[in-house]
């Protein structure tokens, strides 16, 4: 082989070696190398060079032009939640970046892997109060797992590699990379992309210590009334099968946090329902009766525990979590099992005895019966009066058969949807759990559909939350994405109204909210829709929505002053849960 041929050979086998390109081109090359297929973003002055580079990659990556950066990041979150991949979001400096903050905070508290890339003013202008300059790194520090400012193009490949690694590994979370404009236009020697899989100061997960698994198994095997609580950790760890195997062998009744919904199918015989403030009766009451509490990938949020000093004091607590800062944070653990539950659960399953706990399980079913009689029957099957949120969800279940992705906003409709929606499979419940971000659902549903294009995505939204981010109807119009929007309209900011009714002597302070004609609004965005208020139209209207080719908005007028029950009032113990 002569020299020329040798050079050719090298050129063809290592085409990426040492190309001269701009920082902006490198950003896109790195994203492609990470497998990014979808970007949610909004251009602006300080990120223009990246958008200019993106123009040449239009056939390789799908950029979704949102209508507001908050919509962009919620879409990125929705995408991450259904696909299991990292959501990618672009925004410009200043207001573009500050508009991301709510979504970052949401992703941080709900452990959602998102990488945001923001433009920033030229490095030499930093600190000069330049046009659209804000201190994005410091603003976002409390709400990101990691953030970094790039001022030189040479830093881009490594910064992006670290960003993806940090966002998705260990306990996932949002990462923000702020890139000054000079770095975006700067030409440099791009040596190809090397994914990051190790940072010396960062331990995403520990090796499992078997003695703790053994101690946990001993407790479980000796337990008479064991109770499993599972959260989103099972889903984030991709450990649904491992979790099911553990539950089925140990025969332990299992209840879920809002974000854990669907990790075990809602119809599974050992799935005893939802935990927390508006969770099911049995799981809350029996938390204070179990002898061994096994928490898997959940963080004992105050909405789950109620009053902490009266929470499961009688129980020995086993806590499986990947984040050591969660262990003993709210509930003192008897046996901490620190690790990735995909690794720890099979080890535990191997050591636990195959058992059934029929009498103990029956207790959950007895409480369920009480709840059905006191709450569920009239919520799901009211015979007279206006429609309830529960019966809409119940009807939706029958039509989707539990296979849809349900994206919810925040408030009464969220609690009702989470309580009553059926989920046959994982990554089906997308909601803002920790932050409680109204306005989350519509943009998150758009992202959820991009993340799971073959699934039906239904966004269940209240009349209040819908009006917070309804501009994203424009994104739906422009992309033609198929999202079913189900507005449960009670003409109130219902959850606050409920609290005002129960705790503020019905002093309804600024919860009476007027809405536009939602169907006309959708029509303005070329989205078909319908509005119903009569029970007899419900099933057909839902069926029409589901059958419709493309997006559809269905507004259902529901009864104005319905309350979500059961309820653990704030400051009360879980066993003081009220049925009315």
């Amino acid at each position, binding site marked *: 082989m002569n020299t020329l041929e040798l050079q050719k050979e090298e050129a063809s086998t290592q085409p990426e070696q040492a190309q001269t390109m701009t920082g902006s081109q490198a950003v896109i090359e790195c994203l492609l190398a990470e497998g990014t297929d979808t970007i949610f973003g909004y251009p602006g002055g300080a990120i223009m060079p990246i958008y200019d580079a993106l123009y040449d990659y239009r056939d390789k990556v799908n950029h979704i032009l949102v209508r507001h950066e908050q919509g962009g990041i919620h879409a990125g979150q929705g995408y991450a939640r259904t696909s299991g991949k990292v959501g990618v979001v672009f925004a410009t400096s200043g207001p573009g970046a500050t508009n991301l903050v709510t979504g970052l905070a949401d992703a941080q508290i709900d452990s959602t892997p998102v990488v945001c890339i923001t433009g920033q003013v030229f490095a030499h202008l930093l600190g000069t109060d330049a046009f659209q300059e804000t201190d994005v790194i410091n603003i976002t520090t409390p709400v990101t797992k990691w953030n970094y400012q790039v001022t030189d193009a040479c830093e881009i490949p490594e910064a992006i590699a670290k960003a993806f690694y940090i966002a998705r590994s260990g306990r996932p979370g949002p990462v923000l990379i702020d890139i000054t404009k000079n770095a975006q236009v700067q030409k440099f020697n791009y040596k190809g992309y090397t994914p990051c*899989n190790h940072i010396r*100061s960062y331990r995403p997960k*520990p*090796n499992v*210590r078997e003695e703790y698994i053994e101690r946990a198994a001993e407790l479980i095997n000796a337990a008479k009334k064991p109770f499993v609580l599972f959260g989103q950790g099972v889903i984030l760890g991709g450990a649904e099968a491992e979790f099911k195997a553990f539950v089925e062998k140990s025969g332990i009744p299992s209840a879920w946090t809002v974000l854990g919904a669907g990790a075990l199918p809602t119809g599974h015989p050992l799935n005893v329902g939802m935990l927390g403030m508006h969770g099911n009766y049995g799981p809350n009451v029996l938390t204070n009766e179990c002898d061994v509490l096994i928490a898997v990938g959940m963080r004992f949020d105050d909405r789950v525990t109620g009053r902490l000093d009266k929470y499961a004091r009688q129980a020995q607590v086993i806590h499986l979590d990947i*984040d*050591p*800062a969660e262990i003993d*944070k709210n509930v003192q653990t008897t046996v*901490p099992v620190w690790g990735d539950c995909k690794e720890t659960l099979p080890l535990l399953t191997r050591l636990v005895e195959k058992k059934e706990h029929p009498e103990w399980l029956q207790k959950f079913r007895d409480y369920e019966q009480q709840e059905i009689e006191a709450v569920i029957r009239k919520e799901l099957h009211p015979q007279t009066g206006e429609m309830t949120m529960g019966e809409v969800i119940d009807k939706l279940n029958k039509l989707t058969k539990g296979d849809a992705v349900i994206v919810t906003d925040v408030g009464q409709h969220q609690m009702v949807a989470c309580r009553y929606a059926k989920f046959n499979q994982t990554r089906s419940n997308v909601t803002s759990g920790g932050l409680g971000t109204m306005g989350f659902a519509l943009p998150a549903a758009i992202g959820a559909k991009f993340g799971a294009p073959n699934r039906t995505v239904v966004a269940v939204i209240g009349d209040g939350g819908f009006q917070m981010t309804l501009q994203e109807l424009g994104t739906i119009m422009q992309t033609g994405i198929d999202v079913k929007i189900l507005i449960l309209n009670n003409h109130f900011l219902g959850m606050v109204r409920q609290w005002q009714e129960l705790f503020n002597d019905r002093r309804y302070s600024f919860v009476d909210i007027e809405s536009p004609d939602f169907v006309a609004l959708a029509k303005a965005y070329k989205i078909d829709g319908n509005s119903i208020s009569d029970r007899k139209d419900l099933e057909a209207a839902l069926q029409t929505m589901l059958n419709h080719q493309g997006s559809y908005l269905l507004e259902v007028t529901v009864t104005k002053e319905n309350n979500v029950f059961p309820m653990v009032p704030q400051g009360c113990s879980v066993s003081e849960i009220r049925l009315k």
Partner: protein
Amino acid sequence: METNHKHPEKKEFNITVYTENQIGLLNRIAIIFTRRKINIDSLNTSPSEIEGIHRFNIVIDETEDVVRKLARQIEKQVEVLKVYYNTNDDIIWQEMALYKVPTEAIAEKASVERLLREHGARAVVIRKDYTVFETTGHREETDTLIEVLQPYGLIEFVRSARVAIIKDSEGFNQKLREFEQREPGEEVIENEYLNKRDKVFTM
């Protein structure tokens, strides 16, 4: 299981943080305290025994339970290698203070000189108009000298942050080697904190 709820009273804790040298990390660590409305009494950043590794010394007045949770939150930050927390009994510590007094007062009142000797202070600068003394020691010692010098027209006082050495620490060299050697996916297992989680926290 040993718990710390037996002694819930606040006391002074010294938090030692080994970190990468990264812009913005100071803020990331500081907000862990400010978010919980905890005042940092003293904060020192300095190089450590290892090049490129920085060391924070943070002093706060809190219960051990709170300090342990703070330590875990700090250690969770990506660029933080390791966090220790210790009571004052576990460490050797010093703070340095500077005092500016009118030279006139020193020259005219011999008692000042005697007082300074008693407090181990030394003159750093002597000018016609003022003299600067320096002393190093524990908080009470540097505090006492303020009171002593006040009647003599103390013009200016400043005290440094606390620096502290952990009595039973073997340094960070060995630990860092472990951090570096570890191949991705084969993270060893210290996990040792599980055994003594009320004492040392470590990942």
